[in-house]
């Protein structure tokens, strides 16, 4: 993890809602893997006070491509202050041959860098876009990826086969996370696969991260063991069979 400067070299709008920024980054920021991200600051002032999470979707030598909503305006040559890489790479098993990625109402951008290496080593991968996630411009996705669309979880007709088929399953939701969605998925996976092996079912947890370095303790995720893990150090992907989902409901009664 390093602090450094990046320069926006190119801005490409790929749909009404999504733009891709090509950032020239320094060495330490080129070594970023799928599931890791940056905490970015566009401004030398303090508004917004906290940094924004920027998700890289591809790396090419000294250029990292990140995806940002189009409602933020950027300029070519703009200098961006980056902290990163934050978090652990997604735990893609080397033995995994089939990969199921699910985006609940959220951009699938967080999966794309991992997907690149998975496809490179001949994994078969399916991306499920649920609800608003269907608005994602899937023409921009790798052709080798199979894409399934569903209005909502229960309308995801292929879920029996796809869940049974996958060696590993990753689910994302709008930040910070969507516990009800992850619960529905966990129940389905338990029902369909009976035993869920270790390193099989992951949810993405992306709480606000004041520091991103393990110091402020604000991004804790509670586990069923009673332990707590830091999303910025141990995340973003957490094994959904180990997380105490109910204790991570935002503003839950236990508070």
């Amino acid at each position, binding site marked *: *993890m*390093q602090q450094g400067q990046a320069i926006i070299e190119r801005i490409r709008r790929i749909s009404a809602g999504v733009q891709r920024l090509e950032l020239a980054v320094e060495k330490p920021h080129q070594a970023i893997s799928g599931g890791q991200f940056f905490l970015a600051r566009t401004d030398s002032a*303090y*508004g*917004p006070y*906290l940094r924004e999470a920027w998700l890289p979707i591809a790396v090419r030598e000294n250029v990292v491509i990140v995806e940002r909503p189009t409602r933020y305006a950027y300029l070519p040559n703009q200098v961006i202050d980056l902290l990163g890489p934050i978090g652990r790479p997604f735990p893609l098993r080397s033995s995994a041959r089939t990969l199921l990625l699910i985006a609940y109402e959220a951009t699938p951008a967080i999966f794309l860098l991992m997907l690149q290496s998975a496809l490179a080593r001949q994994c078969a991968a399916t991306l499920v876009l649920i609800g608003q996630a269907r608005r994602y411009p899937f023409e921009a996705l790798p052709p080798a990826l199979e894409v399934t669309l569903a209005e909502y979880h229960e309308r995801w007709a292929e879920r029996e086969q796809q869940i049974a088929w996958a060696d590993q399953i990753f689910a994302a939701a709008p930040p910070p996370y969507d516990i009800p969605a992850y619960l529905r998925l966990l129940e389905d996976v338990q029902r369909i696969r009976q035993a869920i092996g270790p390193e099989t079912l992951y949810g993405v947890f992306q*709480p*606000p991260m004041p*520091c991103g*370095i393990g110091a402020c303790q604000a991004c804790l995720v509670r586990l069923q063991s009673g332990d707590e893990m830091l999303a910025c150090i141990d995340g973003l992907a957490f094994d959904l069979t180990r997380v105490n989902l109910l204790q991570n409901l935002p503003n839950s009664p236990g508070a």
Partner: protein
Amino acid sequence: MLEITAGKSALRLSRPVIGASGAFGFASEYSKLIDLSLLGALVTNPISLRPRRAAHSTRVVPLDGGVLIHTGLPNSGIHKMHRQYAAKWRASPIPIIMHLIGSADDLAECAIFLDQQSEVAAIELGINDTLTAREVRAVVATVRARTQLPLLAKLPLYQAVNVAAAAVDGGANALVIAAPPRGTARDPLSGQLVGGRLYGTWLKPLVLRLVGQLAMRLDVPLIGCGGVHHPDDVRDFLEAGARAIQLDSVVWARPEMVTAIAQAFSVGELTRMAGALADEWRAIGEPAERRTQLLLAPPPPSMPSPPEI
């Protein structure tokens, strides 16, 4: 060099810039980004006698120009924390100050334990917002009686002026002004109002005033904490009567500023910082009273701001 002494023991700060509790973690978390040896000392995140778990509820609400945070002060209790971190604290290039929270009994037990150990150079007591001046004196005295270590008391913003003298009477060797205030904001996620502590640049003028007021009344070293985001902010605190400052949320927002702020001080002596005006600047060695008095003395002739031509 600032010395905070307690009988024969002393906390020596090579620079008047300290990493505040809650912001820098428990030990060397920020060593990846910052050369911690530039700081005068580091205060750990809050540690309690018994383990505390993270708050269940929403813990962060981003605000305009600041942030609300409520962690619940998770830590695994002083004994386990000590086992986990003692080696890191020993290896630290700067003195480690442990921030302790809890009831008077808990704090006493923590103090007895720390007095047997060697890794921690001083204790910072988090003083609860709800304590009266009398209770503050009692809590501090309880801890004072059980340790030789220098004792810093970190006072709540709203109560700082009311309880400061009591903390000194109880035996505090320095006061940290102030712990961040509590507030309420709407969590965009749950749609509910949630409580927590508030951080941001806007804290500085609130805290600066309290430091100025207390410097005129008290003889104890004051450490300013709240809203320091720039070397010029340090200058303001020192001029108002602080002997050192603590940096908190700036390290999250702009870690490079921590280095800029620390480097504005050479060891022991104080160089003038960018933007400082020669005739306003006072050396850090002068007593607090002197420097604060100067603020109330007749001003220099008006200095027009640089023309915009």
